[in-house]
C-alpha cells in the first residue's frame, strides 16, 4: 500500500492506520527500551529467588540501608533549601532587570547548562583538593593553618549538587515572576503597600507555583543523583544511587539492587504525580516555544 492511500482516510484527517504507523516507532521504543526493562528489573526485586518481599524489608529494616535512605533525603532537602536560598534572589533580580544586565544574568545562569555534569563535578573535585584553591584561599587569609579535608565529604556533595542543580530552580522562579504583570505591583502601591509589603502580599503569592515547582524538581533530581555523590562522596556515607551501584556492580546482589531501584523510582514517581499540577507538562506540549 502506497503511503499516499494509507495516510488519507476521508481525505482530510490523518487515517487511524496512519496515526498508528507514525507513533509505532515511539511506542515500540519506549515500551521495549524503557518500560519493559524497568518493570523487569523491579519484578526481580519481588520474584528472586522466589516471590518475596524480603528484599524490600532489607532496605528498611537493616539500619545501614535505612541510614542511606535518610541520608539521601537529608542531602536532597539540604540541596533544595540551599538552591532556593541562592536562586530566589537571583531570579528576583533577573526578573526586574532589562537590557544588557538581563542578558548578562541569563547567560551566567545558563552557562552551567553549557557544561556537562562531569565537567562541573570535576571542577569541584579540583577546587576541593587538599592543595586546591579553596584550601589555599583559607590558609592565605589565615582561617586555617592546615589543609582541610573537603573532598569525599557530605559537605562536598551538598555544595557541588547545589551548584549543578541551581539552574533548575532559577528558571521556574524567574518564569513565574516574569508572568506577573507590572500593573499588579502598581495597584498594590496605590493601595498603600510599600515595596516590602507589595512583595509579601502580591509578588510572592503569585510566584509561589514557580517556587514550589522548582523546589520539587531539584529535590526529586537530587534524590536519584549519581555522578556527584560517586565522585565527591565517601563510601562510608553513600546516597541511594551510589548504594545501588555498589550492590549491583561490586556485590552482584541483583534482587537487592532492584529493590533499591524500586523504592527510589516509586517514591519519585509518586511525588511527581502528586505535584503534577505544578509541573503542567501538558502546557509544554503545544504552543510553548
Amino acid at each position, binding site marked *: 500500500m502506497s*503511503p*499516499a492511500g494509507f495516510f*488519507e482516510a476521508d*481525505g*482530510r484527517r*490523518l487515517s487511524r492506520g*496512519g*496515526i*498508528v504507523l*507514525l*507513533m509505532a*516507532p*515511539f511506542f515500540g*521504543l*519506549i515500551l521495549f*527500551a*524503557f*518500560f519493559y*526493562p*524497568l518493570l*523487569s*528489573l523491579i519484578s526481580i526485586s519481588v520474584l528472586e529467588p522466589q516471590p518475596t518481599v524480603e528484599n524490600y524489608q532489607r532496605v528498611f529494616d537493616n539500619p545501614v540501608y535505612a541510614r542511606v535512605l535518610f541520608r539521601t533525603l537529608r542531602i536532597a532537602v539540604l540541596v533544595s533549601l540551599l538552591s532556593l536560598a*541562592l*536562586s530566589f*534572589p537571583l531570579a528576583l533580580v533577573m526578573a526586574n532587570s532589562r537590557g544588557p544586565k538581563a542578558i548578562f*544574568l541569563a547567560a*551566567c545562569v545558563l552557562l552551567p*547548562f*553549557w*557544561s*556537562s*555534569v*562531569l*565537567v562541573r563535578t*570535576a*571542577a569541584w*573535585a*579540583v577546587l576541593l*583538593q587538599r*592543595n586546591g*584553591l579553596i584550601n589555599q584561599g583559607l590558609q592565605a587569609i589565615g582561617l586555617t593553618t592546615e589543609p582541610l579535608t573537603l573532598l569525599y565529604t557530605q559537605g562536598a556533595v551538598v555544595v557541588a549538587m547545589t*551548584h549543578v542543580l*541551581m539552574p533548575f530552580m532559577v528558571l521556574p522562579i524567574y518564569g513565574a515572576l516574569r508572568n506577573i504583570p507590572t500593573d499588579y505591583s502598581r495597584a498594590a502601591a496605590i493601595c498603600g503597600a510599600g*515595596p516590602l509589603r507589595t512583595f509579601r502580599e502580591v509578588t510572592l503569592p503569585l510566584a509561589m507555583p514557580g517556587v514550589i515547582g522548582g523546589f520539587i524538581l531539584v529535590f526529586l*533530581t537530587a534524590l*536519584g543523583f*549519581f*555522578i556527584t555523590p*560517586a*565522585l565527591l562522596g565517601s563510601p562510608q556515607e553513600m546516597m541511594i544511587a551510589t548504594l545501588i*551501584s555498589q550492590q*549491583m556492580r561490586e556485590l552482584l546482589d541483583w534482587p537487592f539492587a*532492584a529493590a533499591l531501584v524500586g523504592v*527510589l*523510582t516509586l517514591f*519519585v514517581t509518586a511525588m*511527581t504525580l502528586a505535584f503534577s499540577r505544578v509541573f503542567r507538562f501538558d502546557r509544554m506540549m*503545544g*504552543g510553548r*516555544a
Partner: protein
Amino acid sequence: MNPRSLLLNAYVYAVLAFILVPILIILPMAFSETAYLTFPPQGFTLRWFGEFFASSRWMDAMWFSLRIALFTAITTAVVGTMATYALVRGAGRLGTLFQALLIGPIVVPHIALAVALYLFFQQTGLSGTTIGYVFAHTIIALPFTVFTVAAALSSVDPALEDAAMSCGATRFTAFRLITLPIILPNVISGALFAFIISFDEPVVAFFLAGIRDKTLPRMMFDDIEQNLTPIIPAIAVLLTALSIAILLGAALLRRVAARNAATPEQT
C-alpha cells in the same frame, strides 16, 4: 539605590560568583604546563590537548561517543517528529497515552534506567553495542526533542497541508514540501539537543560500560576518580566549546524558525 536593593544586588553577585568560579577556574587549567592541577595555571601549553588527540584510548572513546550521539540525534529526530506529527494531527486517545508515556524518561531517575538497561542488554545480547547506547540515549533525549518539535508543529496552520492536498499532493508530499521546511529549524534544533544530551550523558554510560566500550564521559569519570591530570580540564574545554556551539546553533535555528513563521502576518 536604597540600602535594601544594594544588599540584594551584592548577594546576587555573590551567587553569580558561586556559579561561575568553578567553571572559570577549571578551564584555564587545561593550558597549564605543570602535570598537576594548579591555579593560576603556570605557563601556557597545548600539550594536554595534543595528548588527548594522540591517545588511542581517548580517541576510541571520543569516536564511540560521537557515533552514538549522531545516531541518537537522527533516531530521536525521526521518531520524535513522526510521533509528534501524529499527535498534533489528531491522535485522540493514543495521543494522550503518548504524552503520558513521554513523561516517563523525565520522571524516572537515570540511574533506574541505567541499571534496568544493563540487565536487559545482558539478557538480549545488546551489551557493549552502539545500538544499545543509542536506544538508551534516544529514550532520555526524546522528551526534549518532542517539546521542541511540538511547539513548532502546533504553530503551523493545518490548513496549509489541506491547501496542498487540494492542489493534488498526497499528504506525505504535502508534509515533505510544505510542513517539513517550516518546522525544519526546530527539528534540527531538537536533533542538536539530542546530540549534546547523548554526547555528555554520564549515568547510563557508567552502568552500561564494559572493558572496551567506554564512552567519553565514562572514561572521564574513571580519570576524575583515579587519575586527575590536566587532560581532564582540556577535555572540559573541548566539551564546553562543543556544548556552547551546539546550543547557540540550536538557538539560532529557533530564531530563524520564528522569523519564518512571522512573515505571513506581515504581508
